């Protein structure tokens, strides 16, 4: 006992200790790699690299850690920066860089948290634009403080004119953050989750996307100088980027952008691709412009699509909540009938039990009769339990998953749940449901809700019909192989003439007591199932409601309901 407690304690301590250590090691390795790459990606005569991913890694790390641990991050990064730069630049210069980078990264993160919001998810256009604005603004400010600008301003370094040094430093840092930070953040937060939930079909699509991204980048940046004759080929990279943005949101889009950018650096550095004829300075500027011009529309598109998905999901959630609320209202309306249905078995149980008690007090014990009584009590008890069970499952906040379901079972469940209501309304129900009907696809609880609503409405509409003529007909039939149609016909008062469809409007009611939401929510449920629901008056008397649902096989299996993520 004590040992396990100690073991658990030590494992907790180990977790508390190893997890940050692993992350810090990862950060150190990442920063080292980024700095080395930044140094690699510089063209011959340039003092400044094409891109400085080191600052982007630092910004990402700070964004992912709470403020209280920032000193740890900075403490890990500083010696690595020094180690990388040790041989290349004088001590004062890398020390300046370390301090400058730290201030730049911290202020960028603070500004991002304030302006763009926390956490960064790149799922809204506002956040994407704010992220970009902060990156550029801070990178420009930072550029004024770098050794290369200050020294060129003082005339101590002759490699660049001051404005050029400014522009290069700003763009190098800004583009690095634009390209590296979003994928690092998103992968760190959601990458594992998204990957582990990837269905096989989508995994195949991801492979195709990666392949086409690499292929398009190779065509645009990895071919020989002849590419210069067809500069439009540069736009080829746009296609896989669009594909990724549409299908895989900000995570996919930012990753693909990083991939394209990396290959463009590699191609341009290897004297290939469309920028081959330019001076090194122009090459770098062209690359920066290319990245920014790609990044903005692709990330905005991904954000717009994510916004739409989120809105759709919220709508879907609201519809389900509304469906649940109207189900509660239906149960409220049926409460009298349901109470009646429960009181029947309770009556039999009580009468049986009291009869048995009476029998037991008699001198001549009729044991077989007592046995029969007890059997009946058990039977009635089960019946009462089934009434409650049906009610509970109807009130369950559904999992909203479509599954193949037989129309017959929906109708059977409906009539079981509405049994008392139908009976108390003195309505005779006629069923005509062929046994070989194809199954439909839908949410069982919600379909039950729709049919129950139609049945209860039908019964209510027959309040003024003489009891012996109160007839509710449920007829199902296949419609052209792709649909199943269920008709619910009553012999009641019918729909208001000339505005039959108005009964589906919210808050439209012909009853004194209804919310007027029943049919409108029914229609939205059916539409979410890809089906149709409408009503019309019968030639002689009453109304018929038509419910069209997709058959199991015709449905694409991806109804609006379970769309989203």
């Amino acid at each position, binding site marked *: 006992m004590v040992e396990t407690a100690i073991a658990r304690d030590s494992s907790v301590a180990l977790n508390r200790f190893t997890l940050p250590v692993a992350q810090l090691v990862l950060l150190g390795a990442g920063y080292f790699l980024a700095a080395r790459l930044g140094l690699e990606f510089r063209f011959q005569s340039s003092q400044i690299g094409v891109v400085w991913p080191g600052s982007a890694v630092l910004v990402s790390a700070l964004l992912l850690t709470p403020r209280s641990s920032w000193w740890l991050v900075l403490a890990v990064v500083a010696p690595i920066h020094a180690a990388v730069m040790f041989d290349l630049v004088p001590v004062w210069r890398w020390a300046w860089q370390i301090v400058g980078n730290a201030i730049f990264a911290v202020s960028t993160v603070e500004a991002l948290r304030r302006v763009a919001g926390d956490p960064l998810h790149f799922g809204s256009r506002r956040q994407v634009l704010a992220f970009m604005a902060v990156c550029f603004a801070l990178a420009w400010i930072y550029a004024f403080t770098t050794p290369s600008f200050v020294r060129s301003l003082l005339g101590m370094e002759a490699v660049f004119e001051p404005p050029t040094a400014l522009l290069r430093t700003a763009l190098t840092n800004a583009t690095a953050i634009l390209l590296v930070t979003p994928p690092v953040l998103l992968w760190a937060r959601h990458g594992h989750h998204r990957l582990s939930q990837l269905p096989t079909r989508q995994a195949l699509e991801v492979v195709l996307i990666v392949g086409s991204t690499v292929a398009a980048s190779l065509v645009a940046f990895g071919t020989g100088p002849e590419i210069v004759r067809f500069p439009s080929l540069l736009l080829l990279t746009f296609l896989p980027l669009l594909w990724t943005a549409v299908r895989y949101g900000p995570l996919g889009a930012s990753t693909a952008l990083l991939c394209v950018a990396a290959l463009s650096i590699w191609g341009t550095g290897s004297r290939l691709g469309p920028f081959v004829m330019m001076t090194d300075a122009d090459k770098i500027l062209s690359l920066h412009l290319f990245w920014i011009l790609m990044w903005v529309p692709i990330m905005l598109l991904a954000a717009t699509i994510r916004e739409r998905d989120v809105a759709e999901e919220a709508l879907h959630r609201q519809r389900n909540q509304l469906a649940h609320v109207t189900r509660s209202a239906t149960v*409220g309306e049926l409460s009298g009938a349901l109470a009646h249905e429960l*009181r029947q078995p309770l009556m039999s149980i009580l009468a049986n039990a009291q009869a048995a008690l009476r029998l037991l007090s008699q001198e001549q014990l009729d044991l077989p009769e007592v046995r029969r009584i007890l059997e009946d009590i058990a039977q009635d008890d089960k019946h009462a339990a089934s009434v409650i069970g049906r009610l509970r499952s109807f009130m369950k906040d559904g999992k909203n998953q479509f599954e193949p379901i037989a129309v017959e079972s929906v109708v059977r469940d409906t009539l079981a749940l509405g049994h008392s209501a139908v009976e108390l309304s003195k309505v005779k129900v006629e069923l005509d449901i062929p046994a070989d009907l194809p199954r439909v696809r839908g949410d069982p609880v919600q379909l039950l809700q729709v049919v129950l609503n139609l049945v209860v409405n039908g*019964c209510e509409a027959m309040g003024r019909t003489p009891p012996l003529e109160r007839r509710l007909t449920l007829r199902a039939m296949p419609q052209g192989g792709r649909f199943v149609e269920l008709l619910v016909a009553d012999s009641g008062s019918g729909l208001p003439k000339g505005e039959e469809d108005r009964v589906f409007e919210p808050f439209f009611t012909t009853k004194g007591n209804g919310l007027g939401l029943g049919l409108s929510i029914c229609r939205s449920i059916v539409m979410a199932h890809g089906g149709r629901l409408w009503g019309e008056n019968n030639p002689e008397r009453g109304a018929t409601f038509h419910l069209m649902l997709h058959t199991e096989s015709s449905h694409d299996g991806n109804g609006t309901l379970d769309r989203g993520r």
Partner: protein
Amino acid sequence: MTETGLSIAVVDDEESVRVALRRLCVAYGIDAETFASVEQLFDSLEGRRFDCLVLDAHMPGYGGLDAQTWLHESGIRIPAVIITGRDDDEMRIRSREVGATACLCKPIDAEILFGAIRLAVRNSPNHGPIRWSEGLKRPWESPGAEPPATDAPNAVRERHYRPVPGFP
């Protein structure tokens, strides 16, 4: 408490309730005959004499209150107890108006049921066997038969804001 010697008719559409009530009556020494519908009861009323009718108010077709109303309006005074699955004040008032002694809500304790029956029998004038030929037509046989307004406010339509005991 023994009601030995009484002969009553029980009308309820639910078989389990019919069986249970008959058992209860037999156990208490009461002679009970059960019917599944008002029509069945009326068909066998001819020449019979029941001390009391126990009528379920809600049945498909004609309800117990309809039956009691017709009997009452036809001047036939048989002691009657209405039993109902719905806790309904209006039902109680109407039952009294048409001469039923009590309107009891299911589930009904044996003491209460038999107490009501005893009261009904004690209060009612001594009545003889029923003769349909004596001017009473079965209501559904008369032309243009409409059920009385008892069930006009549709059962489903009524809303219950009161919590129903024993209901989740």
